[in-house]
């Protein structure tokens, strides 16, 4: 376990504000807390200079007052860097990362449908994965979401 602290140090060297916000809970896993304003530059740096060239997935979380977004990046030697964003639930605006990872498109649409995130810069497209007749403004993975009475027999 020598590469992980190196990655941590180079991230802190480049982005001073990440000091104390990077955790290495175990081998090959690195977690970093980012803010929306510096998020894109961190992704770009991780991708271009630290060779985190793969986006595994994006996790969306409902954490009460905020929505959490975890971007799991991976390297070919198996080290994963999870960059976390916390955004206000009332106005959950994030920027698209499809400029860096075109495959993020489908994950971001999922965040829009299931958690109600607003993704800036994502081109228009069909909704995914909910059905076409799903009501607007209804986000089933939010904790306060309730199934509509009489919507079906369940």
């Amino acid at each position, binding site marked *: 376990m020598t590469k992980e602290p190196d990655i941590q140090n180079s991230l802190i060297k480049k982005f001073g504000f990440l000091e104390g916000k990077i955790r290495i809970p175990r081998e090959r896993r690195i977690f970093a807390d980012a803010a929306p304003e510096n998020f894109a530059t961190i992704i770009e740096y991780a991708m271009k200079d630290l060779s985190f060239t793969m986006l595994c997935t994006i996790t969306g979380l409902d954490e009460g007052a905020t929505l959490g977004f975890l971007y799991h990046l991976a390297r070919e030697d198996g080290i994963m860097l999870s960059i976390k964003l916390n955004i206000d639930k009332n106005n959950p605006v994030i920027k698209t990362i499809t400029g860096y990872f075109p495959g993020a498109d489908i994950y971001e649409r999922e965040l829009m449908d299931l958690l109600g995130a607003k993704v800036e810069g994502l081109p228009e497209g069909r909704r995914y994965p*909910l*059905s*076409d007749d*799903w009501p607007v403004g209804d986000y*089933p993975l939010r904790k306060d*979401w309730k199934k509509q009475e009489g919507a*079906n*027999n*369940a």
Partner: protein
Amino acid sequence: MGLVEKVVTWARIKSPWIIHFNTGACNACDIEIVAALTPRYDIERFGIQLKGTPRHADVLVCSGPVTKQIKCRLKRIYDQMPEPKFVVAVGTCSCSGGVFDGCYSVESGIDKVIPVSAYIPGCPASPKAIIDGVVKLLASLEKKEEKNKK
């Protein structure tokens, strides 16, 4: 019953054509349906043939719970089939919704959307159970025909 009708009923019982439709299954039941159709279990010995279009089919074989997205498509497929038509629900999910019942994107079992003639439970339903269910459906049709004769 006219002669033509008699021949048609006879042909229907001796050789029902089926269409297989996945309404949101996890694919386990689909694999079992394919196993039932192919030579290992060979459901074709009852004259059953898989068809590529609902317009040629007498029996609609559904697997999986009905998702909200597939609901209107299922109705459309059902409407495209010529009368008389029968629906077989394969697997616990298509019988009642199973573990997916109450999920935000799932409607429920097949019978909430279209009428079902035979239910085959199981997770997944084994090919033996599928054959048993299909044979029971055919036997019930045969009985109906005998009643009509009398």
